[in-house]
């Protein structure tokens, strides 16, 4: 699992490559959380993530909690259908903005 971080204008793009399980999600979380600052705009690109367990949900939850009340925003793109299923049965999906592609995600963050 790799985490690649870059900036596009004022948006921080975090692209994860590889499975997010209990071994890898805490590592991704360590890189993601410091970016969740006041007023931040984060595009979380999960195009390269074929699998995510509840450890990945915990990573999303921690990020969400850190952002709330800070006027920070996060948009998820490229979320595999099966991962959307997991987010759906756990009621996570209603609390996140999902877009199909990075381009659409950037548009959503700029809007």
């Amino acid at each position, binding site marked *: 699992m790799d985490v690649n971080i870059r900036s596009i204008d004022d948006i921080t793009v975090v692209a994860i490559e590889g499975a997010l399980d209990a071994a890898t999600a805490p590592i991704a979380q360590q890189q993601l959380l410091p970016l969740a600052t006041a007023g931040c705009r984060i595009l979380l690109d999960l195009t390269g993530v074929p*699998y995510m367990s509840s450890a990945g949900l915990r990573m999303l939850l921690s990020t969400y909690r850190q952002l709330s009340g800070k006027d920070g925003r996060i948009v998820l793109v490229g979320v595999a259908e099966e991962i959307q299923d997991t987010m759906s049965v756990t009621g996570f999906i209603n609390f996140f903005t999902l877009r199909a592609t990075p381009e659409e995600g950037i548009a959503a963050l700029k809007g």
Partner: protein
Amino acid sequence: MEPLTVPGMLPALEEIGRYVMAAAAEAGLDKRASYRLRLAVDEIATNIVVYGYQPSGTEGDIIVSSTIDDHVLKIALEDTGPEFDPRQHAMPDEDELTRPLEDRQMGGLGVYLAFEGVDDFHYERVDGRNRNIFVVNRPSAAPAT
């Protein structure tokens, strides 16, 4: 498929996942059923490490095995950690699953996903070992392998 023995540690989850996906392919499961089975096995294997081997300070293996008959694929996880029956684990109810994320406890979510992802689940304690068994129905049209 031949059983797989891996050390009871988190980095082994990836190899367990590969084994489950290979067994699911052999049983003719579709993409979604295969994924859900992988998720179920991964969540319980995670618990074996995190609630079993790690807190007790013991080291041991996880043995993954599979059997396929005309109707079902069964995956079994065996470990020598302390007795732990996932069915006794508290699970989130409907209220918890619709609650705002700010107020979530997050306890039992993995076990919930595990039970949700398979058609049947068994647990037994035999000869000092935990056996977690996951059962998934095969598509009726799947040819016997």
